[in-house]
């Protein structure tokens, strides 16, 4: 952080300025002139919060992807299929048991097992052959997508959140000030705040595990030099299995989250695969903080774009990606290898 400020003082100042302006826009009540120029504050706030929660969802999907890539150089283009599979399984579990929370551990374990099989039976056979892995996982995603379509059909599913999470909640953010001087606070769906909170918890926990535990040390060592780690007696295949299973399980849980506040239908798998690709390209391959920043940027640009330039909102995402690639090909927080 300090090193970054010292190296790029102007860029750091610009980022700080943008952040300050955004914070001021969020927390300060808007005057009438501003509302006429920028539209209603409520709309803006909703876009901001929608972007952040969407970013949280993207982070859940993309962090597993980037972890797997960072450690094993495995390009798992079937990651989106794992997401959709997790969503459908979560729907079935929550329908059958009536418990939304129970779906999470069940789906995590089920999709993690699928991930373990993938790693053990597919990726281990073609270690280091990136192109072949890509082809095989593309083939797998086509097959899985069609099997899912076969089982669950073409209609879209929504997973219902539990009662204690449905309905809106007040946020300590001023939405507007009435003429009487009464302050109206922003109302926002509670389930989305819960998802945001959960994503932050998952992200912090991943960071802690990676940076503070023995397992994390092994993983980081594996990212830096796989052969050396294996030579020093670590059974690296077990580490690989653990990371792949965890990443896959996370994608499956993200499927439940996505099914709760959006919907599940065929085609969502490619959508989330693309989203994680873009997030990871923007943030930097193999970096968890990079995935967080990338997910936030992409989520915000998508939602703000949806409000202020609805026609081309989807294209913005890819423009950001192209800009990052043009000026920093390894991604915002990626390391040059």
């Amino acid at each position, binding site marked *: 952080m300090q090193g970054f400020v010292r190296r790029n003082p102007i860029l750091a100042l610009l980022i700080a300025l943008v952040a300050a302006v955004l914070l001021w826009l969020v927390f300060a009540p808007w005057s009438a002139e501003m509302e006429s120029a920028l539209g209603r504050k409520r709309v803006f706030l909703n876009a901001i919060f929608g972007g952040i929660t969407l970013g949280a969802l993207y982070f859940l999907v993309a962090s597993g992807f980037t972890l797997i890539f960072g450690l094993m150089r495995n390009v798992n283009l079937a990651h989106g299929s794992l997401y959709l599979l997790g969503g459908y399984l979560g729907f079935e579990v929550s329908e059958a048991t009536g418990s939304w929370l129970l779906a999470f551990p069940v789906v995590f374990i089920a999709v993690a097992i699928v991930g373990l099989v993938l790693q053990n039976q597919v990726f281990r056979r073609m270690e280091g052959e990136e192109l072949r892995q890509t082809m095989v996982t593309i083939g797998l995603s086509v097959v899985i997508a069609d099997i899912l379509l076969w089982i669950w059909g073409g209609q879209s599913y929504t997973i219902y959140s539990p009662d204690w999470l449905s309905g809106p909640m007040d946020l300590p953010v001023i939405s507007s000030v009435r003429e009487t001087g009464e302050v109206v606070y922003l109302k926002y769906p509670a389930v989305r705040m819960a998802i945001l909170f959960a994503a932050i918890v998952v992200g912090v926990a991943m960071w802690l595990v990676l940076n503070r535990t023995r397992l994390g040390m092994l993983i980081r060592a594996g990212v830096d030099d796989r052969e050396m780690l294996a030579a020093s007696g670590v059974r690296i295949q077990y580490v690989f299995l653990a990371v792949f299973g965890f990443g896959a399980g996370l994608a499956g849980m993200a499927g439940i989250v996505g099914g709760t506040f959006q919907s599940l239908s065929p085609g969502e798998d490619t959508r989330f695969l693309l989203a994680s690709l873009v997030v990871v390209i923007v943030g930097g391959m193999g970096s968890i903080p990079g995935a967080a920043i990338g997910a936030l940027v992409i989520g915000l640009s998508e939602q703000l774009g949806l409000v202020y330039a609805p026609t081309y909102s989807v294209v913005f995402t890819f423009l950001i990606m192209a800009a990052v690639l*043009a000026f920093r090909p390894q991604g915002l927080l990626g390391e040059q290898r």
Partner: protein
Amino acid sequence: MAVVEQNRSPAPTLWIERVPSGWWALALVLLTMPAWANEFFLFQVMGWTFILGIIALSLMFLAGYGGMVSLIQMSVAAMAGYMVAIFGNSGVEQISVGLPWWLYIPIAIAIAAIFGTIVGALAVRTEGIYTIMITLAIAAAFFYFTRQNYTIFNGYSGFNLVVPPQLFGIDWRQPTAFYYLTLGCAAICYAVVVYVSRAPFGLALQGVRDNPRRMAALGFNITAHRVAAYTFASVIAAIGGILLVWQNAQIAPGTAGIPAVIDILVIAVVGGVARPIGPFIGALIYVLLRTFSPDVLLAFGLSGERFKLMIGVGFLVIVFFSPDGVLGLWKRWRARRETVRDPLTGDAR
């Protein structure tokens, strides 16, 4: 060079005599096909095979000779198709300009080539798997852009009634005429790719694929060669795209959707990216599966909608067991047969 060669071989063989007999048989079959095949087969199966083969050929050129697996080729082809619809005639009269064919075809190819070159210039900054991801993401962006943009690309519905011009009094959308049109284009594209692969540019490109550092040390501009490869491949893909829009008589965002983009990769990989004939073999397999697998599945009592599963499983099996496609399987089979023939002495029996 030519003088030296003539001195060495006093009776030079004509180039016609050096063509293997298998090619003559293939040419005979292809040229006489309208005489014995029905119209559906000519137009739908063979026409489509040649078109997909041309587009996959452009991917094969990039992947096989340049070492760059680009998923943008379908989008480039669709861009050319869109340009034909926009600058030529279509059912959407408020957008289509209605230029004559000798003007809109070069314009379409040029714009598609520019598009492919820009994407290539972005993509060559990356290597290997990153190239796949970036081109996939740009292809997705193109799909979404064409779906959202109504002023140029006419959004969700796209363009219909895009037909080839009536040249020399022939309706080029008649099955036989269209068959020969696509066959001719495919043959020309194939010949050009084979020629370029042996020309100095193609050899330098293969050198860049094998060892970029050494080529750079020899004074070759690596980036320029790669971007030029994208430009060349874009021209080929554009030809395929124009034929595609004529065959379907319409173009919509789904033409270059993610499944279509992946299909081109599947075709090229299944056929094999080592030689230019691979994409056409892959395209033939794909089109046959796509056209007839519903019937086959129904015959086995399964739902006809599962053809994607069949294609996916077939792709998976081929990639899993033979990274270089059907051609690789064939080559390995022949090599094995030869080794079986001479187990001890090493001589051919």
